[in-house]
């Protein structure tokens, strides 16, 4: 798979991450003085980066399939003994896909933020963090070795922390930021162990070397261990079970942050990592099964939680977790092309819905509870239209992008004999459509349920433009992959290999089933929430206590608190109050006290009488003489 270097492309790869990095640096130092120009500068730079990405990718595509590979060596990063790591960038079809998503959607979100954050006095800092995030994310996907990837990995974690806790003066936001960082840290540390094992086994972290020689260098068990460790990192970053707890709380950050980081890009880093490392996972076999199981369980789990949420952003958060689960299901079935297409489609419609939610929240004067909304389609028509397009895409309604992705996934499941996955995936699809419908109905349909909803207004054009563009994207992107063997999969084949498909239900039957499930679920949601014929409050009460449990994430947070957090805090208290105060301070103070006491006792020897000193002297002399005399 060693492709010829593509010189023209390779030379300009560095520009792609460099532009947002420059933006971050400038706005970091001059942000406050620039005011609103900080946002404009940041947005322009990301658009520029998108432009370069587009040019570079188009250039790459002019080459035949096997040789679509560009490498750029920036500088020698680490050179210790026989271990070398270069700051290398790699462009193949996989990273090409990612950079287009990152810069494209990132640019639109930056544009949206110019409007969304216009009132904020610290917006300079905001755009600095956003640009910095884009830089790190690009490094993550453009890295030609695991270390550059890890650099980006940690960097996006940092920026996520900074951005979630951006409004740090509000109590709870800093907690959410810490929770995100610490939870992903667990995954990151395991991933680092995985990297260390890779160094141990291969002596390098370079993708070409590792994936080229892994077949002969790794036993099945070694590959399993390494793959699972890497997957642990992915579980953390992509908020899968059991590390999903940080994502709903991360909604404390500004909505553009949720759109960019927690919908379109950072959380997809886990998927990218596994796809990139698929060679290791395939050698292992077991690891892929683990990925599949985690994906299925997470998709179902999160979908049940999404149904019961009242906060519009939390619905979207659990929805993201669930959709990421879908992506891992695809990966677990070795349908990498399907997974990547799902990633692209999801990035588009999830970002769209988040930005739309932001628009709603803006119009509702910072109210996020859907029970206070209602009837907003009249006051905010553009938001309503674009949001609905995104929602229907997620629900799997053709001809929008989400339909093709979901259908492709279920087709693979069916055609590779994985009946259980097929059934569970369909159930999850049903739940997905249901909560989407619920969300749209509660927010936009019916009558206004509060004053804020009554007085809602549409958002400014600078915020609406990205919504429209993303909506168009959602409609159009579907064309890229009309089946599991579509254009995206074919483009990725040099990187990820092909998927063998068997037989199963026929394609039209599957399409029919998928559409039926989606429409049925949407209709049910409309019946309960949109038609006004059902008393939603009573309906919910009938479902208690399950509804509250679902709303609270099935008490996973509580379980973690009891099993991990409280014992850790107790241990900390024990260490500080008992061990530190009594043992360590006791020892130190004890020594001090001992010295003091022995000094105050000992000083009494200095009586000041010369005769006493002389007596003691003589005593000593007699003693020594006696010693000598006795000894010989």
């Amino acid at each position, binding site marked *: 798979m060693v492709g010829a270097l593509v010189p023209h492309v390779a030379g300009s790869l560095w520009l792609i991450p460099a532009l947002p990095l420059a933006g971050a640096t400038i706005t970091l130092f001059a942000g406050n003085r620039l005011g609103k120009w900080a946002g404009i500068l940041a947005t322009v730079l990301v658009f520029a980066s998108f432009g370069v990405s587009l040019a570079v990718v188009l250039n790459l595509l002019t080459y035949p399939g096997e040789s679509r590979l560009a490498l750029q060596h920036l500088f020698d990063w680490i050179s210790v003994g026989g271990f070398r790591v270069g700051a290398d960038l790699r462009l193949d079809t996989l990273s090409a896909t990612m950079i287009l998503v990152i810069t494209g959607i990132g640019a639109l979100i930056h544009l949206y933020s110019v409007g969304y954050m216009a009132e904020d006095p610290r917006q300079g800092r905001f755009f600095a963090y956003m640009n910095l995030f884009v830089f790190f994310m690009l490094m993550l996907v453009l890295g030609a070795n695991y270390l550059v990837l890890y650099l980006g990995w940690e960097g996006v974690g940092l920026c996520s922390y900074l951005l979630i806790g951006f409004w740090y003066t509000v109590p709870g936001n800093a907690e959410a930021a810490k929770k995100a960082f610490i939870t992903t840290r667990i995954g990151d540390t395991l991933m680092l162990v995985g990297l260390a094992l890779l160094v141990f086994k291969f002596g390098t972290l370079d993708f070409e070397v590792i994936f080229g020689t892994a077949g002969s260098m790794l036993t099945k068990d070694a590959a399993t261990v390494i793959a699972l460790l890497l997957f642990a990192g992915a579980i953390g970053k992509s908020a899968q079970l059991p590390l999903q707890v940080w994502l709903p709380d991360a909604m404390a950050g500004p909505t553009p942050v949720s759109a960019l980081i927690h919908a379109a890009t950072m959380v997809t880093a886990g998927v990218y990592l596994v796809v990139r490392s698929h060679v290791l996972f395939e050698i292992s076999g077991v690891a892929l099964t683990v990925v599949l199981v985690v994906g299925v369980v997470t998709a179902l789990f999160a979908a049940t939680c999404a149904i019961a949420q009242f906060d519009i952003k939390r619905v979207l958060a659990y929805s993201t977790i669930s959709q990421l689960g879908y992506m891992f299901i695809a990966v677990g079935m070795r349908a990498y092309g399907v997974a990547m297409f799902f990633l692209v489609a999801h990035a588009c419609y999830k970002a769209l819905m988040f930005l739309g939610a932001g628009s709603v929240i803006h119009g509702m004067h910072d109210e996020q509870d859907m029970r206070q909304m209602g009837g907003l389609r009249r006051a905010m028509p553009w938001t309503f239209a674009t949001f609905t397009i995104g929602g229907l895409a997620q629900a799997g309604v053709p001809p929008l992008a989400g339909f093709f992705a979901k259908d492709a996934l279920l087709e693979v499941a069916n055609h590779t004999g994985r009946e259980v996955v097929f059934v569970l995936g369909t159930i999850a699809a049903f739940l997905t459509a249901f909560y989407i419908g619920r969300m749209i109905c509660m927010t936009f349909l019916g009558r206004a349920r509060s004053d804020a909803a009554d007085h809602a207004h549409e958002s400014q054009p600078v915020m609406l433009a990205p919504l429209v563009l993303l909506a168009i994207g959602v409609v159009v992107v579907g064309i890229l992959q009309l089946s599991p063997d579509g254009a995206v999969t074919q483009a990725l084949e040099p990187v990820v290999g092909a998927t063998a498909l068997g037989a199963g239900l026929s394609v039209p039957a599957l399409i029919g089933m998928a559409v039926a499930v989606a429409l049925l679920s949407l209709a049910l949601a409309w019946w309960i929430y949109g038609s006004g014929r059902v008393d939603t409050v009573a309906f919910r009460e009938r479902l208690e206590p399950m509804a509250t449990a679902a709303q609270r994430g099935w008490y996973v947070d509580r379980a973690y608190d009891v099993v991990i957090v409280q014992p850790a805090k107790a241990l900390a208290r024990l260490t500080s109050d008992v061990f530190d105060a009594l043992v360590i301070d006791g020892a130190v103070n004890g020594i001090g006290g001992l010295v003091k006491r022995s000094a105050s006792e000992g000083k009494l020897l200095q009586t000041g*009488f010369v*005769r*006493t000193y002389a*007596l003691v002297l*003589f*005593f000593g002399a*007699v003693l020594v*003489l*006696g010693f000598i*005399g006795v000894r010989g």
Partner: protein
Amino acid sequence: MPLDDVVFWVFAPIAIAAAVGMLVTRSVVYAALFLVVNFGCIAVMYLVLDAAFLFAVQIIVYAGAIMVLFLFVIMLLGVDRIDVRSERLWLQRPIAIVLAVGFVVEVATALRAGIGFATHAPEGFDLLQPAGNTQAVAEVLFRDYFFPFEATSILLIVAAIAAMVLAQRKVRAVTQAELGEELADGSEDEAEVEVAP
């Protein structure tokens, strides 16, 4: 009974008795005099040990010079009368005596283990000093120990100067102002300014 033995057994007890007397007596002057007696006895011991030169030097230097100096100072300072006997450190005396006894025992033990209580002085000492003890000592002193001899002479000069400096009454320059004060008093014809004692 050999003469040496007799002399020894007469003067040794006297020496010890004089030492005891020096310790016990209340008067400082008596203590000094007892010490003189002790020095004399020791001088006799030197004579018995065939050290005639030291016998003479002991009398001249110790008894004649050093003790005289002591008596001068005693009289000068007038401390012969004041001597409080009450002991504040009540453990001092018993322990000192115990330790002294222990010391003597140790010396005895060492002697027994070393040269033994029966060793006599060897005979050939006279051969060392054919022209007399003084001449022999002079030869050894000026030949083998010449440098220490010269150094000691410098030491003596230094000691003399040191004593002069230490015992001096401090004289400081009297300022005109003080002189003027005294004279302006009108009570005297000569100015007399008090300097530090």
